[in-house]
């Protein structure tokens, strides 16, 4: 019996050998691209588009995996404790990775632990009301809210998310109170609004573009007018000093060597600059960004200061 088991163990060992590769230059085996959310979302679709180009540049298979939970925190805390070998890249979202550690006590990771590789996309966040709503401008919206404190219901995705932050900032700046109704995810928040259960919606630009025929965008959080929604004024041009958006990029474990980060940076840069991919993304309502590792890192630091100040003013931390 024991002999049998030993033979089996040896046979098992050979299965391992089949999967191993000799130690050569990075990358020499498949790279995992982890999405911190459920499949079918925006991060997912973008990753699927990037995959073929990444595989071409890196020369290895890129497998897309999903590790949802706690609004992304499960995936981010896993990579924060992971090995810096560059074989796992995780999608990172701003402002999530900034807000969660600030607000959650122990989110399982800190913003600094996610080593930035590349930031390739922004979706500005916009405020919308129903097509047949009597409100036609942001000023009318604020006026209604002033006259009826807490009556205005705004649907959004997540607590302490980019949407929530935008609502809080708007409240703070105008001295009004809304009722923010968070849903667990962009799709349910849009459904809540489309079904008439809330009066307004804070949503990502691609959702606003998808359902453009059924809503009026009162304001958009990009610094300049957003081409797919040309009639939507920006918060800035209306006199409100705020921008709102969700940025998407990729990060790796904290102790990943710079050479590996550079290799990944090159791959994502190639993917982002690919003309076909770029036009498809923009057609769906995303804004392309091309921030490499260093730029992304600086952006994170600046954003973190900004958000920390805002959250303190709002009394959230």
């Amino acid at each position, binding site marked *: 019996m024991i002999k049998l088991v030993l033979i089996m163990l040896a046979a098992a060992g050979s299965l391992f050998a089949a999967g191993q590769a000799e130690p050569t230059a990075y990358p020499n085996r498949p790279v995992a691209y982890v999405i911190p959310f*459920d*499949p*079918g979302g925006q991060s997912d679709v973008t990753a*699927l588009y990037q995959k073929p180009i990444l595989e071409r540049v890196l020369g290895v298979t890129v497998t897309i995996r999903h590790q949802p939970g706690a609004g992304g925190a499960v995936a981010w805390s896993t990579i924060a404790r992971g090995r810096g070998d560059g074989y796992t890249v995780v999608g990172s979202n701003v402002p999530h990775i900034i807000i969660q550690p600030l607000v*959650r006590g122990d989110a399982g990771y800190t913003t600094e632990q996610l080593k930035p590789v590349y930031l390739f996309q922004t979706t500005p966040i916009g405020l919308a009301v129903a097509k047949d709503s009597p409100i036609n401008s942001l000023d009318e919206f604020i006026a209604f809210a002033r006259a009826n404190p807490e009556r205005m219901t705004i649907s959004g995705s997540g607590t302490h998310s980019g949407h929530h932050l935008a609502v809080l900032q708007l409240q703070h700046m105008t001295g009004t109170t809304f009722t923010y109704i*968070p849903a667990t995810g962009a799709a349910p928040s849009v459904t809540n609004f489309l079904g008439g259960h809330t009066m307004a919606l804070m949503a990502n630009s691609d959702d606003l573009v998808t359902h453009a025929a059924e809503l009026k965008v009162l304001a958009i959080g990009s610094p300049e007018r957003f081409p797919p929604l040309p009639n939507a004024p920006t918060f800035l041009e209306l006199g409100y000093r705020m921008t709102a958006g969700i940025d998407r990029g990729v990060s790796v474990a904290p102790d990943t060597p710079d050479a590996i980060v550079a290799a990944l940076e090159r791959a994502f840069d190639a993917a982002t600059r690919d003309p076909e991919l770029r036009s498809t993304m923009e057609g*769906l309502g995303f804004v392309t960004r091309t921030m490499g590792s260093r730029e992304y890192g600086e952006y994170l630091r600046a954003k973190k200061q900004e958000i920390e100040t805002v959250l303190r003013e709002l009394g959230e931390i």
Partner: protein
Amino acid sequence: MVEHLLTALATATSPLSLLLVACGVCAGIVVGALPGLTATMAIALLVPFTFSMQPVHGLVLLGSIYTGAIYGGSFSAILINTPGTPSAIATTFDGFPLARKGESYRAIVTATVASVVGGLIGVLFLIFLAPPLARASLRFGPPEYFWLAIFGLTIIAAVSPRNTLKGLIGGAIGLLVSTIGIAPIEGAVRYTFRSISLQGGVALVPSLIGFFCIPEVLRMVYESGSVAQVLPYKRQRNMLQRVTLALVRKPWLLIRSALIGTLVGIIPGAGGNIAGLVAYNEAVRADKNKGKYGKGAIEGVAASEAANNASVPGALIPMMTLGVPGAPPAAVLFGALLLHGIRPGAELFTVYGRIAYGFIAALVLANIALLPFGLLLGRAISRIMMRLRVQALAPIIIFLSMVGSYALANNLADLYTMVGVGLVAYLLRGVGLAAGPIVLGMILGPMAEQGLLQSILMGRAAGSIVGVFFTRPISLLLIILTVLSVLTAIVVERKALIPRTE
């Protein structure tokens, strides 16, 4: 629309399409049968491969996998009491007792016929009533989700026929477990015992495996007296005809279950799992002889399977017309559509009509394909299992459970969850607390809590919390259904308590 359908039928029956349907259905059944691998995961795994295909072919493949996987969950539900996908939970209630009595093949045939009929009825809704149904699904807001969850909880009564109190305790435990993690509103970190992985809550699919599979395997091992047989197997000829006849004699069973399945599928966020459970509950309520459920009634299996396969086209209805997925696998298909640059909505049925209708036609074929492939695979798997003794079967099942729980998110914590939950379930079973109610609590908890809290916020904003819960038409309908369900349960319990004079 009719020319679209006809051209679609032509495309769908091309050799390549048929091959894709066949492969998709078989692959889907296998994945669905393996505990831990869900339909969502199967579709998500294959979406990258479809990138280089023509859109219609990619969708045909994914749709076939979806159909096959939801059906495939019934195999492990029947044979090892483990729902292969969450949509097969209700199939375990009567499917496994049937297997224990040696009638596993009869259960599989029932599941097959029911799935085919349910799926086809669902596709009919998709073809003819998609836009109005999708619009109606939007009317489901937070208060409706809350009442739906409450209605779902009344299923506890159907699942614990002799001991409702224990069922209630189990349900409450499940509801409390569902609160572990980050609160949906306000984002408080709750009951995580300082563990980071618990911040995401207790993983559902590994828990399902733990609850249903582990205690059964442990029992299997220690009850294997001197005979090293696992599941007695009675061969019977003409099983297909007999089952079909039995089901045809009660047409309302399948029709009602398919209706429930389609409707539940349409509701965004409620998918195959809830569809199967509600249909099972309604089957029990509609039946004069309620005592036979839970002990091996093929009606229970038929109801659950017809509903869950009907939820497939159901979930696709709002996804294709509005871009709002009715269930997680539909969300992945939505991503697949976006991948090909196709945006769901009115455009899908006009500009991209060839693709949309080609996909729908393929769904019809996929459901029909369940019959030959399902029976073949089902019989093959049963036969293989018959050949194995308990000594081999038990560890294999445990290994597959570990693999399945891990593979879902490549997370070791999920494996631990599965084993931990399994052992707890084993102990709870020892004191009469069954898995069904606990799992119901875990699944419905988040829906109930979010519905409750979001509705309270809505109510506060509108000035009347009571109003938001009790004055909306769909909510009222659900409240009536809940009350009816509770009344039936009380009446049944009363009858059971009054001693019968023989």
